[in-house]
């Protein structure tokens, strides 16, 4: 593609999708070009719906979806340049990995020989070369995920969409899949990876999209988003025998603007600068001489992050 006007790989404009009464994706607009992008969101946030819209499986109720400038619902031609790893767990268990990948490669119009050699190549890339003649039914979960990735890469696509590729994998498989994805990003391809675990995405990419309840919550660099989040109020939960005494010690410290006693033996302090709060925390505790049994940071996960974004 060497058009004079640069068309983004993925262009989503004001797309909404309803399933009857339920809304799957709500007025989402996105343009993605180059590099690895993580799509984050809890279960039911609309990640898979978004991907299905991108892959032309379902038709947007409103708005338009364009891949390389073409509507995938109308025309299957963009699939020549797209690799898609669905969230589906089922594979053809009776086929060998090699067969599976080469059969699907032939659907790109490759000859049989071409397909076989491409399949071998791509299976080597995902690290399944040794087991390529084993039946998929005998593969482990991680291997199955990798063979799914292999089929999506077999035609050397420009855009790769991976729906929960790390789902259900053990840490070793996870690392190897992550490496594959990073490698793809380094090759200059556009990669979309969805996950509901922030930490996973963090290890792959810095560019993220956050979806919740079908709405686009945030988009951009993960650290930039983090910083923006830091300006939001945060909570720190301290378990102690003398919460009130400790609360007295905290009041007056600069970053802390409020305290609460949610239940017996607990103290919640509220801050809008989390890192500053954490820096004063040890000092205050030591000075107050209160015995603290534990310190929790309930907001330090994706869920609460999202909670802030949507609830304010």
């Amino acid at each position: 593609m060497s058009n004079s006007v640069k068309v983004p790989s993925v262009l989503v404009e004001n797309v909404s999708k309803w399933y009857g009464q339920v809304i799957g994706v709500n007025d989402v607009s996105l343009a993605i070009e180059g590099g690895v992008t993580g799509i984050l969101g809890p279960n039911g946030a609309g990640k898979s719906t978004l991907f299905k819209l991108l892959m032309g499986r379902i038709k947007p109720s409103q708005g338009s979806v364009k891949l390389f400038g073409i509507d995938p619902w109308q025309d299957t031609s963009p699939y020549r340049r797209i690799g898609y790893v669905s969230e589906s767990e089922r594979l053809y268990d009776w086929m060998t990995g090699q067969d599976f990948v080469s059969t699907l490669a032939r659907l790109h119009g490759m000859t049989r020989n071409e397909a076989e050699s491409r399949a071998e190549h791509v299976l080597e890339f995902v690290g399944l070369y040794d087991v390529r003649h084993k039946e998929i039914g005998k593969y482990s979960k991680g291997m199955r995920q990798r063979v799914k990735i292999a089929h999506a890469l077999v035609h050397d696509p420009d855009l790769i969409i991976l729906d929960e590729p790390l789902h259900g994998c053990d840490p070793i498989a996870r690392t190897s899949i992550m490496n594959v994805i990073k490698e793809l990003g380094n090759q200059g391809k556009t990669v979309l990876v969805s996950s509901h675990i922030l930490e996973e995405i963090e290890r792959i990419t810095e560019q993220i999209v956050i979806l919740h309840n079908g709405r686009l919550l945030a988009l951009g660099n993960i650290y930039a988003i983090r910083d923006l989040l830091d300006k939001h109020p945060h909570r720190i939960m301290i378990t102690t025998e003398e919460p009130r005494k400790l609360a007295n010690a905290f009041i007056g410290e600069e970053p802390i603007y409020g305290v609460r006693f949610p239940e017996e033996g607990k103290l919640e302090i509220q801050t809008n600068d989390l890192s500053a709060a954490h820096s004063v925390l040890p000092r205050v505790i030591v000075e107050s001489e209160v015995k603290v049994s534990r310190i929790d940071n309930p907001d330090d996960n994706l869920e609460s992050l999202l909670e802030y974004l949507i609830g304010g």
Partner: protein
Amino acid sequence: MSKQDEQGRGLSNTVWTQLDRKAGAITELTIRQLRNRISTWVVLGVGVLLISLLLIFYIDSIRDEFEPYDNDGDSEDWDNDGYPLGQENIYGTSDYNEFSFPGSSEYIYQGDIDWNDQPRTHYGNHTWSYAWGYFTPVWIDVNSTNPFIWNYYNSWIDWSLGDYSCEDEGLPDNPFYIGQNDDYGYNSIDRNYCQFENGTYIMFGAAFRGEGEFFVQPGWETEWGYFTESFFVEPHPKSMYIDEDDIDWNGNSVSGSQGFDDDGDCLKEDYLVESSPDDSNRNGIVCDVQWTYDPYGNLISIRADSNVDEDPDDSKHVGESSHRTFIIGTGKIAFVMILGLFLPLFLALGLVRDESENGTLHYLLSKPIHRGEFILYRLLGYLAIVVSYTVILTFIIAFITSIIGPGESIIRLSDYPVWIGISLSTILVLTAYGSVFNTVGLILPRYGVYLCILFGVWEFLMGLFTITIPSSDITMLSISHWAIQIIDATVMIAWSDTALMQQQANAFGLETGISFFWHPPVHTLGTGNPFIALIISVVFILVFSIGMILIGQLIFRNKEIM
């Protein structure tokens, strides 16, 4: 070196070759998928088993040869006198009377006194029968034995019973007394005769031999005659009267009247046949067969006078038509109705539906392939299996039956067009049902299967009706009707004399089953031409299948896949 595009692929990779490859890949995937399912093998295996079963029965029946069958029953000897009915017919004796047989002594009628004849007495030495009246004997043959089985009104007197006095029974010797007061006075006595003290006998429907004067009371009657000398006639073996009256047909379609009464049972004058000789087909010629043709030379009907050509040579006629019946019946029931219906039910129903249920559809649809093409290639994969299966199976059964089947030649080449017709019909049915089931599975993934089962039951019913009553209108709403039409038409094309055989079987009572399994094709636009029926049926099924595939494609193209 061929030209290359930017991606380095040869330009010889045109759109078409790429399409071929995609088609090949999906077709191959489908075949391998079906091959990997146990149920496929079970279903195909059951089909082979079914065909082998039919073959075993066929070979068994061929080995026994065709038993000659006595259509008119004249090889039977009902009265156990040692002479079969056919021989008795020739001699004009009765097969229901053991005393009446060729060469047996025969009662010859000489005279009688009717209820109002005058005079009412007769003297003579006779055998009297149906004797009602007063007999004054000179001599009575008390030793004569009963030459006939008589009826109730005329039974041979058993003289060995001794005297039987009329007075004891209270009968008056005045003949008119009985006549005036009690016409049926004999009802009150135990025998059909009694004797008065003056020696006169009174007879009530008796038969006996003797000399004397017979007085017949007015209103009563008596007849007399004599018995011929008996002589010996060699009894014919029963086998002479099986297949003794073959179909006399010289194939001359100009002269409609054919047939000859070889065994003479039509021409004979006999009390068993009411009006003989016979012209029950009313063409003015007695004892013939009327063959009626239409202007194109097709046989319309055969109407035979009774007992003409009625017992043809079974091995000559039945052998061939049984062979045909086997092929037609197997084609219609085993191939079209059983294989044609159940293979798609097992194999085609889940072609796309199962993929989408399992979620494996995503892999296939994320490739640059149009959804419409995808359906077509899936069906192609299914057809590749079932079509080759059908063709192989037909060829095997065709080969075996054409070798061991009846006929002079080593191999019956004329069978093959019919087998090809059966194969074609089955393949069309497999295509039609395959596309229907596939499409219904797409439209209604949940309820569709029940619809398919209902549809299958409907097709099954309509198929059965079509075989028995092909002209019924409602059956036209089914695929199986048209498929069966194809077989009927090919049979008519390949074996143009099947209609003749069927007419012969109907007219002369040949038990071949061909009348049940075969009927001339119905949808010929009034021309009677089987090619037209063939073309109409093929086009109908093809149009239906293509329509179904198009509907399926349309639905699938606009279907959101979860």
